[in-house]
């Protein structure tokens, strides 16, 4: 674009998108946690019911959903460290951009360690 605004330090850049992702993943994890506490607590009042709910966790579609959930947790957790470093490390703000890509790189690495193992567990039993 010819007359693109010179831009800001923030809008449309890594700073903004990391914030958007952090927020979306935080909300997703929160709602999962609400359900997860309840489905786990079910074990206290209805053990057979608990096994029935866990059977749905073993289906391929929840298995895929859980893979996505772990991806969200990986990003949120690692980007959380980035936020903490920006706040407390003297050079944090200077390196926030690089740190974002380190977060993405580490998240992909850890996800590559997790996903095959989990997906094999899921798909070898259906």
């Amino acid at each position, binding site marked *: 674009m010819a007359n693109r605004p010179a831009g800001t330090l923030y809008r449309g850049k890594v700073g903004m998108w990391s914030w958007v992702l952090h*927020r979306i993943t*935080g*909300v997703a*994890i*929160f709602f999962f*946690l*609400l359900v997860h*506490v*309840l489905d*786990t*607590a079910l*074990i*206290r009042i209805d*053990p*057979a019911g*608990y*096994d029935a709910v*866990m059977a749905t*966790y*073993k289906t391929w579609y929840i*298995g895929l959903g*859980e893979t996505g959930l*772990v991806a969200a*947790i990986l990003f949120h*957790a690692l980007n*959380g*460290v980035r*936020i*903490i470093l920006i*706040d*407390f490390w003297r050079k944090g703000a200077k390196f926030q951009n690089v740190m974002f890509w380190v977060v993405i790189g580490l998240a992909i690495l850890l996800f590559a360690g*997790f996903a095959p*193992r*989990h997906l094999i*567990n*899921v798909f070898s*039993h259906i």
Partner: protein
Amino acid sequence: MSVIIESPRSRKRSGFNLEKYGWMYMRLSGVLLIILIFGHLFANLMVGDGIHAINFAFVAGKWADPFWQVWDVTMLVLALIHGTNGMRTLVNDYAEREWIRRTLVWLLWITCVTLIVVGILALTTFDPCGDQASLDLLAKDGANVAALCAAH
């Protein structure tokens, strides 16, 4: 002549600042949650048969061990308060009417406290060897019932 800026331009606030402690809590709990959640995911999804091994007997086995009891309760409390306080930030950002904002924030904390109480009660009063149906289910799930019930 140089411009004289009156000092102090803003007084240092003294006393208890709840927002500041909330801000610090998000960071402190975040660091602890990395260990707790990653350890939780590893123990439940990566080891052995992963998701496929999780059932009544699996949880009975974990909660026979004080180590996992403390782990799970700590994670429950830290994560729910962290998530709830994070959601409070979103409500403060997006709710346009004051009464809606206040109602949502109240709902968030009520949900948070309720789930913490439910979660702690479920774990602390859990007795997988209390009745015959549970014992049968343990056996069906493939647990070593005698050893497990001796530990509980």
